[in-house]
């Protein structure tokens, strides 16, 4: 297990370097810089005028050669001291992220829990009642919801509860009552995604022969469902829940901007509009780290839930057979048999 973790960490560091390079190069290629925008003064992107001392930041910042900017940024990242941003010279990047992240997190945790609590029963119900009204109805609703943009629900909730019924605040971030609309709005789409996933994962587990075997041993439908089907079909869900949580915790631009919530999403979108390079790079790297940590946690959770993966992670024998069960099967379009056949006929492998 230790060796496995060490390998994972090395891979994480390498991917972070790659992410930083790609992001930096792409940002360099985007036309316009903070200095240009601030010289132009107020623009269609909003007021980018500098607060006092901004001049100094700019001089140290985007006027330098690109490689110097990159190196000083990476140094800042490693020492977790990324210095002042262009827009707010008094505040450092890590301070701004440190302020915004807890806000996003207080939305992400209840939103993820809400997603789980609603999606799993709906998905189970649809799977058990496959091809019945409950299945068709929920599937239709879920597909529709999934196709609609998330902020639409935020607007809808504001219209109903704030404007219409006048029971909840419209926007802002001043107390617990301000959390209700964003949490629900954030949970809607992931719920639709997850419920559909639960359904297909359950259906796959229900097809397994050990379900018949457990019934043939005399288990009730309910016992077999809980002891064998539910548990096995939950394992692949971990892989979906991890990224859902990471996505919510790193802020969702539309909902945060729309509802005036000072989270990471809003911070990131304003940094992007103003080409505030230190803040942009800092936020991007922070997102990448969160996502990778979540993926690591997912894999550890996977090992805890599935003995086959656990034994593979600890380098045990028998790992050759290990495969994530219930994972949706990826079709490569051609089985190995037909590939081999084509080669045997005399075709080329590609």
């Amino acid at each position, binding site marked *: 297990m230790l060796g496995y973790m060490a390998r994972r960490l090395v891979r994480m560091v390498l991917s972070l370097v790659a992410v930083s390079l790609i992001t930096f190069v792409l940002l360099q290629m985007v036309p316009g810089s903070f200095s240009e925008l601030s010289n132009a003064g107020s623009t269609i992107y909003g007021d980018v005028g500098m607060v006092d001392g901004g001049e100094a930041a700019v001089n140290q910042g985007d006027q330098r050669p690109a490689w110097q900017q990159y190196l000083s940024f990476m140094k800042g990242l490693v020492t977790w001291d990324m210095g002042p941003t262009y827009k707010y010279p008094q505040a450092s990047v890590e301070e701004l992220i440190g302020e915004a992240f807890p806000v996003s997190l207080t939305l992400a945790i209840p939103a993820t829990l809400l997603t789980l609590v609603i999606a799993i029963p709906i998905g189970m119900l649809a799977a058990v009642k496959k091809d019945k009204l409950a299945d068709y109805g929920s599937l239709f609703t879920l597909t529709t919801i999934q196709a609609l943009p998330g902020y639409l629900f935020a607007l809808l909730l504001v219209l109903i509860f704030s404007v219409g019924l006048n029971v909840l605040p419209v926007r802002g971030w001043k107390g617990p009552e301000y959390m209700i609309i964003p949490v629900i709005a954030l949970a809607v789409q992931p719920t639709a995604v997850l419920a559909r996933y639960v359904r297909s994962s359950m259906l796959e587990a229900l097809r397994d*022969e*050990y379900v018949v075997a457990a*019934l043939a041993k005399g288990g009730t439908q309910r016992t077999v469902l809980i002891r064998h089907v539910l548990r*096995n079909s939950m394992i692949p869900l971990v892989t979906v829940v991890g990224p859902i949580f990471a996505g919510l915790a790193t802020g969702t631009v539309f909902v945060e901007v729309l509802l005036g919530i000072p989270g990471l999403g809003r911070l990131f979108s304003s940094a992007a509009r103003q080409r505030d390079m230190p803040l942009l790079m800092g936020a991007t790297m922070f997102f990448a780290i969160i996502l990778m940590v979540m993926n690591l946690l997912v894999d550890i959770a996977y090992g805890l839930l599935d003995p*086959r993966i656990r034994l593979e992670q600890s380098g045990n024998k*028998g790992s050759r057979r290990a495969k994530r*069960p219930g994972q949706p099967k990826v079709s490569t379009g051609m089985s190995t048999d*037909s590939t081999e056949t084509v080669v045997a006929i005399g075709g080329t492998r590609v």
Partner: protein
Amino acid sequence: MTAPVADRIPTVEKGEPLLSVRDLKVTFTQPRSKKTSVVVDGFNLDITPGSSVAVVGESGSGKTVSMRALMGVLPDTATVTGSAVYEGKELIGMPENKLRRVRGAGIGMVFQNAMSALNPTRTLKVQLTEHLKWHGITNRAEATRRAIEALDRVGIPNPDTRIKMYPFQLSGGQRQRAMIAMAIVAGPKLLIADEPTTALDVTVQRQVLDLLKDLRRNEGLALAMITHDLGVAKYMCDDVVVMRYGEIVEAKSMQGLLDGAEHPYSNQLLDAAIDVVVPDLTNIADISSDAAPADEVPETELDESQMLVTATDLEKIFRGRGGEVRAVTDVDISIARGETVGVVGESGSGKSTLARLLTRLIEPTEGDVSFDGADVLGLKSAGLKAWRRRVQMVFQNPYSSLLPHLTVVDNVLEPLRVHQVGTKEEQYHRALDLLSLVGIPEDRAENYPRQFSGGQQQRIAIARALSLEPELLVCDEPTSALDVSIQAQVLDLLEDLQERLNLSMLFITHNLAVAQRLSDRIIVMANGTIMESAPTDDLFGSPQHEYTQSLLSAILPIRHDPATVDEEAGPPRASIDGELTEVRPGHWVRVYQD
């Protein structure tokens, strides 16, 4: 069906039946279209305590569905009518909570594939004890003790530590044993075994069947066994029920069926089954001891020019994260023009790897392959492509080896297209000719592969392999995915084509009986290398290697007695050390010095 129902019930007068099934009918309703299809109709069966009945039929005949219908474990889309009385209680229509008492505790079930019938994420302990608690048979501690005892009864060593393991940590044979333990731990009186050994290697199959026999003998279990293999049915059961298209066509004693089957379909099954005369293994002259070492034996090699393929010192090592796997070690093989060589071995013996090495689908780690006197491994692009015309392959699974998006005629002319043989018109007509050669009528040429049965698909695959008029045809388990009667058709076809076209053939199979049917010479492989190689008659008449003998003794013939097996004897020695020695002209055996 002309005979009245009563006539088709096995006439066994062994007291009150344990289970009595009458007029069982199973109908499936498609949830969307509401279309119904009758899968089982008029199924009758009587099983007395301690007796054994084989339910025999090909895929789709309704064997599994009828058995699952009794247990009430079919999906909701199935409607079951008729009667099934177990110990005086009617099972069909019995409320779920009462029926549960019968499942597991009264009737146990054994499935074909233990890997899927055991939950991969639960330990054996959970899966062997949970139903003891469901049925209120014992408490927790006692349940574990019983489960360990059941594992011991099915012959799993160190049951008290094995019980903590997960199914995937056991070998295939042990998994199957563990599943049988799961079925018997709650003390059922009837065991329904659904193809319990089909997924196993032949030598393991015999062991598991012997275990089931012992359980019957020692515990008085009644057995209903679903199988497609008449040899297995004869070995295990006193009575037999033959099914086709969801109906029973014949039901009588096993011996009665062998002595005189009445229904044409039963006869067809009996004819299609390949039977083998197993030599008396207790009385085989050991000719290896008085054989001279290899280099002193006069060279009996055939003239080099007669050899189409010669491979020497072949070795293949697969390297992966788990380390190295030696799939093929030190193999010499040659195939003469017009000769059929059978390669026989169990899973993991390296036989498929050998086929892929000879066809250069994979590259050997060591060794040489020559074809018609010229080196094969050095061939590049154009030369390689030209050589591929001369060697073609037929795979195990016909459906996945045909291109699903092409019609069958396009599939067959694909090799011609790749090699630009003839005009489009000529290619098309050649493909049609080939299809008719393998018995696919012209009016079906524009259909897609999925519209054909498994046997037809394999015949189409053979037609494609023949389209370039190869000199060597390599068949990798071409019939093991097919039903017995279709297997016979495909083997007939291959035999016929081989004679007409003077093909050389390499025939890979796990089934010695199939190999005997087609091969001039048989090579027995284990652990990636050759154990014995001899002309077919020699191999069956005088098998020398311990491993060959164990393969032969695992065969369950239909019309003859199987070989007696010394149950105390350990697994056969099949190690790769020792020297391959020619004990008679053309008969090579791996001989160990000690």
